[in-house]
């Protein structure tokens, strides 16, 4: 067979929604050779996943390929009947999805699920299929594969589920593998292990792979060629090094700039022309005055613990201190107790043990139920992770921002309030004409701004940020991070930044605390901590972070080496 394995020509995909037809992919053309690994990068809504689903014909009912061709091994697969496509699925092309646990049938043992996939294309007995499945489990390096055969997805970790998913996808040795955000929901350390495995398997079996991701670093690290998409269109295509060092298209430039690296600073997150504007603004800020001697710490937390009826304690022993205007990062994998800690400090839940001193006064003993009456309430505010869930669907943006002002600053509805809300909106860069809108009429970034405006409306002194940018695209994240940094400088606001994204924490925070299983593992000045981790756990976290330009494309070949065999089994 000559020619590329997959050739997409002028692909158009349209969705019929309640607002009419929406064109999600508008004329994408790309090709993929056998054994090649292609990165398909873009922010949400760029059409990257739709392209993947259109290729494997797994689009939602509402979506339809309206124009273009998809040539697979020279055959236009948009023309073949659904029933014939079944032969291709799994056997010739397969797919790996985001959120591996949901992608597996929750009530069927994983061994059977792999066997199902095998049996759908090969004639063999159930016993043989089970044998084959076991081999595949070994191939994806699951520990105790015999035992895992009968396990159900809920009994496996996210990383293991993704391995099972990979086993299913490769079970019939397809020529094309499309991985749609395969590591997005996973912890950093797991991400790396899974990606390494995936790449090695693809290389071993000579499969062509399309890696669909929003993470430029990830694509840079593993792919030979990267394609950038924006709003359904393909804007740039190049080798990773070229793309990241010399992006040609404006969008790519912005994207590259906004992706944090091991060395980038907040100011670096925008393109050069915008940076000066930001720097000028920074310069206008007064330098922070040194605190007077004897001023108590803003926050002093000692031996905080939270236990629930069942299970191990969510937080076992947590102590920290921070001064006014300081920013502290709180990092750790999921389940490490970050969120619980942040809620306790915010006084939204009651700690089981320990003390919280705010401004030298104990606030830990006030029950969370009554804390809304405490004068300290307006000094500690919080910004939530998911902007979609953090705004009351029945409140307009104005109501959301006005709410704490009405409740905590004792303001009355009227012009003063209106001015104050508009002022807050302006500070976070939210156009005043968006204020009467309801959350569902705002974009993710706009919602995030409303959330921040609400939190700073009462001029708090401590702002807890619970993964404030986790759900945002990098370009939006860059803007939000700059905004937060600026607010900190302008208002002398202390930030407690909860995140799993080490790059972000490194940029944003003076100091960083690493949590694991509810205990502090390590803490210290951010840069020092990341440059020279003292514990194995922190080192693992740091190593796992993909960096743009950090690793050359050739790294993909390296990681297939013997070193991979002693990866942490998750």
């Amino acid at each position, binding site marked *: 067979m000559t020619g590329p394995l997959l050739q997409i020509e002028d692909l158009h995909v349209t969705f019929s929604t309640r607002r009419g037809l929406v064109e999600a992919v508008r004329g994408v053309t790309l090709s993929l050779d056998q054994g090649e690994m292609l990165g398909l990068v873009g922010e949400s809504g760029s059409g990257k996943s739709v392209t993947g689903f259109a290729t494997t014909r797994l689009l939602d009912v509402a979506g339809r390929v309206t124009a273009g061709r998809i040539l697979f091994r020279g055959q236009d697969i948009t023309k073949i009947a659904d029933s014939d496509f079944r032969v291709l699925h799994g056997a010739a092309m397969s797919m790996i999805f985001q959120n591996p646990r949901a992608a597996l049938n929750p009530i069927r043992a994983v061994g059977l699920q792999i066997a199902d996939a095998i049996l759908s294309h090969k004639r063999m007995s159930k016993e043989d299929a089970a044998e084959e499945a076991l081999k595949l489990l070994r191939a994806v390096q699951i520990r105790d594969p015999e035992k895992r055969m009968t396990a159900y997805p809920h009994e496996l970790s996210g990383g293991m589920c993704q391995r099972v998913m990979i086993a299913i996808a490769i079970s019939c040795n397809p020529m094309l593998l499309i991985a749609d955000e395969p590591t997005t929901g996973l912890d950093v350390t797991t991400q790396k292990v899974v990606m390494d495995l995936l790449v090695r398997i693809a290389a071993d079996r000579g499969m062509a792979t399309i890696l669909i991701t929003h993470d430029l670093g990830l694509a840079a690290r593993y792919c030979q060629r990267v394609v950038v998409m924006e709003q359904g269109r393909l804007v740039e295509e190049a080798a990773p090094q070229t793309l990241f060092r010399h992006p040609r298209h404006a969008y790519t430039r912005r994207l590259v700039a906004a992706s944090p690296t091991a060395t980038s600073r907040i100011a670096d997150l925008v393109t050069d022309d915008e940076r000066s504007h930001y720097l000028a603004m920074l310069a206008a800020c007064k330098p922070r005055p040194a605190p007077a001697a004897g001023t108590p710490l803003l926050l002093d937390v000692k031996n905080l613990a939270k236990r629930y009826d069942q299970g191990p304690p969510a937080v076992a022993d947590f102590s920290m201190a921070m001064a006014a205007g300081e920013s502290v990062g709180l990092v750790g994998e999921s389940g490490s107790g970050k969120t619980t800690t942040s809620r306790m400090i915010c006084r939204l839940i009651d700690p089981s043990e320990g003390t919280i001193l705010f401004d030298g006064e104990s606030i830990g003993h006030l029950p969370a139920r009554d804390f*809304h009456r405490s004068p300290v309430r307006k000094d500690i505010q919080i910004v*939530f992770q998911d902007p979609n869930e953090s*705004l009351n669907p029945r409140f307009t943006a104005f109501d959301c921002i006005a709410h704490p002002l009405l409740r905590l600053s004792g303001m009355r509805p009227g012009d003063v309030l209106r001015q104050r809300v508009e002022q807050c909106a302006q500070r976070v860069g939210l156009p005043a004409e968006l204020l009467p809108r309801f959350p569902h009429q705002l974009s993710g970034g706009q919602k995030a701004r409303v959330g921040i405006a609400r939190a700073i409306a009462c001029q708090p002194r401590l702002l807890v940020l619970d993964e404030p940018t986790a759900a945002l695209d990098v370009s939006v994240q860059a803007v939000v991070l700059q905004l937060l940094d600026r607010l900190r400088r302008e208002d002398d606001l202390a930030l407690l930044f909860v995140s799993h994204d080490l790059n972000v924490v490194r940029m944003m925070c003076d100091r960083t605390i690493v949590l694991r299983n509810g205990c502090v593992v390590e803490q210290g000045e951010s840069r020092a901590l990341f440059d020279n981790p003292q514990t194995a756990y922190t080192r693992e976290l740091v190593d796992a972070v993909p960096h743009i330009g950090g690793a050359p494309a050739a790294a993909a070949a390296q990681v297939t080496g013997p070193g991979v065999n002693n990866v942490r089994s998750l």
Partner: protein
Amino acid sequence: MASATLRHTVWILRGNPLTAVAAAGVVLLILIAIFGPSIVPYDPIASNVSQALAPPSAAHLAGTDQLGRDTFSRLVVATRLDLVIAVSAVGISFVLGAVIGAFCGYAGGRLDRAVGRFVDVMMAFPLFVLAMAMVAALGNRVENIVIATAIINLPFYIRFARAEVNVRRNVGWVEAARAGGESNFSVVLRFLLPNVLPAMAVQMSLNLGWAILNAAGLSFIGLGVRPPTPEWGIMVAEGARFISTGKWWLVAFPGLALMLAVLCFNLLGDGMRDILDPRMRT
């Protein structure tokens, strides 16, 4: 917002002609309930024994009953009472259930467990028998039928509200409201309840039909509204006695009215669920 909802509603209705028909039916029912008594051709309780058991004709569109009363007029006039019974019964359990359930779902802990126990007790009752017993105990007046129906509905609403609130209690905007200085009490009342109401309204619409049937069942047993007040359930129950003698109109028309009303409410509830959450439609 309003226009968006409207547009969305229109979009849903176009895909669901049944819902549109049901909505029209409900509107018609309400109009009949309001204006019916003033437009009927005959006095619904005036007897005319010489005209008894006349089959449908031009003079009596739906025939006459044992006392020569015009079935059509009775049907039309009964609409108001039936709607009032259904709406007030469901309304009471809706309001009580939403408030109790919301607070329990939010508070959790001992109160929640206690109320949960109570709901368990209620659910363990054979509910129709409970309604019968209550009406028998309190006397078969309209208000007692309403109370009995409301009480047997209550546990469902409590559960529903509880579950709905429970999934939202730790959602960002609820925590934000608390961080914004809202007491737990007003978080439930001003934040959670308004957000739970639409889903409950769907439940309510489905329940309206059920409440009408419930009243009809009570009438069949003999524990319904007092005669000679026209009410569909009683009319069906009375008419059922004449099925075997071929006086079909006595059961057919009230039965049809009952059926259509319940059908409209059910389909409308279904459709409303579409409007709120297409995935959950059933």
